[in-house]
């Protein structure tokens, strides 16, 4: 599974660092380093909805506070 996080200017200001670090921690915690590939990207052209994240090409908007919920409701079910 590939998760891509936008690290462009706009998403950066909306907290992409926290989202990246949050996902990195959660992936490590669940021992999913071999299953989930984290990747950065520059602007996805949807700055209004940032922080923009895609999971295998599918768009999601994630806030720094909502990383854990996003991981539990979107990422984990896709793996199992």
């Amino acid at each position, binding site marked *: 599974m590939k998760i891509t*996080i936008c*690290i*462009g*200017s*706009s998403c*950066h*200001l909306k907290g*992409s*660092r926290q989202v*990246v*670090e949050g996902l*990195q921690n959660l992936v490590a915690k669940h021992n999913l380093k071999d299953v989930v590939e*984290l*990747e*950065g*990207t*520059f*602007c996805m*052209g949807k*700055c*209004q909805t940032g922080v923009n994240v895609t999971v295998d090409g599918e768009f999601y908007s994630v806030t720094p506070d909502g990383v854990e919920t996003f991981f539990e409701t979107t990422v984990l079910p896709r793996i199992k």
Partner: protein
Amino acid sequence: MRKNNLCADIGYMSINHVGENLCGDHVEVVETDENTTVIVLADGLGSGVKASILSTLTSKIISTMIAAGLKLEEAVETIAATLPVCKDRGVAYSTFTIIRITGNERAEIIQYDNPKSILLRNGENYELPVTVSEIGGKKIIRSEVALKENDLFIAMSDGVEHAGVGIKYNFGWKRDDIIDFMQTFYHIGFTAKTLTKILLDEVNRLYDGKPGDDATVCTVRIRSRVPVNLLFGPPSVREDGRKMMSLFFSKEGKHIVCGGTTSTIAADYLGKTLRPNLDFFDPEIPPTAEIEGVDLVTEGVITINRVLEYARNYLADNSSYEEWSSKKDGASRISRMLFEEATDINFFVGRAVNPAHQNPNLPINFNIKMTLVDELSKCLVKMGKKIKVSYF
């Protein structure tokens, strides 16, 4: 036409006599034409307001006269004849060192009562040949030398040699001690400004942080020219993208690409993949990316804004040096390339308005981008860089 590929990197700084707000030393740098640079370091007698006025006057008179095309001898004569000799102490009010660099080929050093300037060549002390003459009853020491790459000149006011008198040393540290000290840093490739700060920090330390005299250092490093090119922002007309890219990538020297959309266009043009990293070396600066064939790829506005902060600090007291000189984030890396490596910088600035950035809730917008380029160029000019900005 430049005769060789050399240029002079000039850096100077002062520390004030303890308790004084004004410095009694003054440095003036004038580029009289494409080929000639004149540096004057003047030290007014005493400290505080009087000394400050005298040294400013001296350096301004000399540099202005030379800039106006008068001969160095005439300027020195005027100064030597004009400067009054203090009744009580029997010495002139302001001493000076003039370094004139012509065509990046020769340096002429004229000194009046300042500590003898030092030249380090290939890391070793090179004693400058001197001729002594008397102009207006004042003993003027004169040297001339053909320049070589990596020559390092160190001019100073006597406050540097007096450092540590009665504290760390009985009679201050000697010229040889200063040479020894600076030889250590010769080969590292520090800029003139950094070398100046290293020496002055040591002087301040020897004074126990309470300088007994104004101390000024001016270093001149002869180095070869290095061009660096920086691309920032997509062009206002989308179709101009390829033109902008071909002009940018045809330039000699290193290439830095700033901005998300910009780097996508650059990667397309080169037919290479854009690979963003996810390492946050600095929590506030977005990660860098990689494109084969580009030396550095970074985010745009936030990164450049930090570079501007570092540039302003560098021109002031350079206290952020330890941050940008070693860190791996995009802003620090751009700073090192622009402040230390480059002598000639070409900016390729795209004027496209990023719709995503026009959100009033975001602290970035089009005007800020243009202002950033203007302000950064100004700072770089003050660092002695040759700047060219092209807009697309």
